[in-house]
């Protein structure tokens, strides 16, 4: 069996752009040809700085940190969605990202077709999708609504659909971004159960959460991020203890 791993060497991620207005053709031309001193102010955010990580098969890793600490950015770099602006990412294994449940739908197509599209984009083979279709549909409890175009759905219904598809695949590397709270009370119970099963399947699990209890249940190792840098990386118990004492101050 092949090894599955995630390795980051000195990874940095910097976002640059223009504050206010459109960074379009006009400003590109002025910057390029006129060196216009009056160009609008530009921003530069270092979302991640010098991250070195080594996550091996069988590890369950939690990500902690305040809002804006770089947790989501790090997950997207791990997934290969953001190409890092510095450093190197090595990745072996099929990545299953679960970042957003509210976007990535074809609004005019039915729930059924959206299940198929989502399944494909998550890397499920077509015949596997067809064979799991009924099971996924049952889990969503959307019934006849699945034949309706999804633009008629409420936000809760979107979450049900996306959640059901995402958790039906066999993940190797599972990346989760604060996704435990899904849907209404009834669905949330069910989702939690399924999520637990699902997370246990992943050969590598990285997930971000503010819930220290959740982190200690799932992860032996936790990484604490602050301002795009790793503050602490170690056994969950120790890291959460420091985090708590720091947050209390």
């Amino acid at each position, binding site marked *: 069996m092949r090894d599955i791993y995630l390795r980051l060497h000195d990874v940095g991620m910097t*976002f640059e*752009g223009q504050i206010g207005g*459109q960074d*379009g*053709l006009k400003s*590109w031309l002025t910057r390029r040809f006129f060196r216009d001193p009056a160009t609008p102010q530009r921003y530069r955010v270092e979302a991640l700085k010098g991250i070195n990580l080594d996550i091996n098969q069988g590890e369950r890793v939690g990500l902690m940190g305040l809002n804006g600490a770089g947790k989501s950015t790090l997950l*997207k770099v791990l*997934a*290969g*969605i*953001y*190409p890092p*602006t510095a450093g190197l990412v090595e990745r072996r294994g099929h*990545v299953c*990202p679960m*970042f*957003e449940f509210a*976007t*990535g*739908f*074809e609004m*005019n*197509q039915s729930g059924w*077709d959206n299940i*198929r*599209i989502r399944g*494909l*984009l*998550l*890397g499920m*083979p*077509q015949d596997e999708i067809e064979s799991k279709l009924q099971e996924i549909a049952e889990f969503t409890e959307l019934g006849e609504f699945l034949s309706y*175009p999804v633009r008629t759905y409420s936000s809760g219904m979107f979450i049900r659909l996306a959640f059901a598809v995402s958790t039906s695949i066999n993940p190797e590397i599972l990346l989760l971004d604060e996704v435990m709270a899904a849907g209404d009370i009834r669905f949330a119970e069910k989702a939690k159960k399924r999520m637990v099963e699902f997370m246990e399947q992943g050969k590598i699990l990285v997930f971000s959460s503010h819930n220290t209890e959740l982190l200690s249940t799932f992860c032996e190792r936790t990484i604490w991020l602050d301002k795009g840098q790793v503050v602490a990386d170690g056994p969950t118990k120790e890291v959460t203890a420091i985090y708590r004492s720091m947050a209390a101050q």
Partner: protein
Amino acid sequence: MQAMPQLLSDSWQSLRVWRVWMFLGVQDIKARFRRSAIGPVWILLNMSLFVVGAGVLYGVLINQPMKVLLPYLVTGFALWGFVVSSLTESGWAFVNAEGYIKQFCYPKQIYLMRTLVSSTIILLITLPAIIPIQLFFRSFSIVGWLLAVPGLFLLMLAVLGHITVCAYLGVRFRDLPHAANGLLQVAFFVTPVMFPAKLLQERHLALIYQVNPFYYLLEVARHPILQGELAAPETYAFAGLYILLVWVFAGLVARSLDSRVVILL
């Protein structure tokens, strides 16, 4: 630095997951006609109306026999639509896929292929409209259609190049699809689509189509369909040269923007 190898391996991986972009492309077409009663027949209907209207009027204006002009118009118009969509609509290829690009791991080139699939399907719906017209005028030639295959293949290569350029630039410069639309309207009038190239030649304006790459792109497919023979070798050569230039440009654009697409979205 290492942008090019990354780009190549991403593109290769995209080609391997052809099932994904095929499915997405077909879904796009289905979605477009989902709530219309006659669906894709609208494309045919619109084109027939245009061709009958314009054909009759132009036939009188430029004094061309219907037998020649009608098949010429339909062919040219169908192929032209294919080229236009690759330079305008494809500017939204990444923009429309934002929700996907930001949360799924597939290389984004699959959204270029998806655009190619859906516009090729539209072409495949419109092209057969030529056949009844050719049958009516007894000018149908199965050999000609077969000989058009290499030309159509070249055309698809060019279109994929266009899609790549426009999709990447469309993310950076959102005005681009609108600008392209305007420019192509001008191009439409100087490209032999509505009138035969011969007409320009007779008035010593041959240069207008000779320096127009779109003319060669259309001719490699149109000439065999209409004449039942391969187009002139230099036509293929010019089309090939243009494709090469477009692909080089596409490679440069993709290399400089590939890593920034997801951030610019």
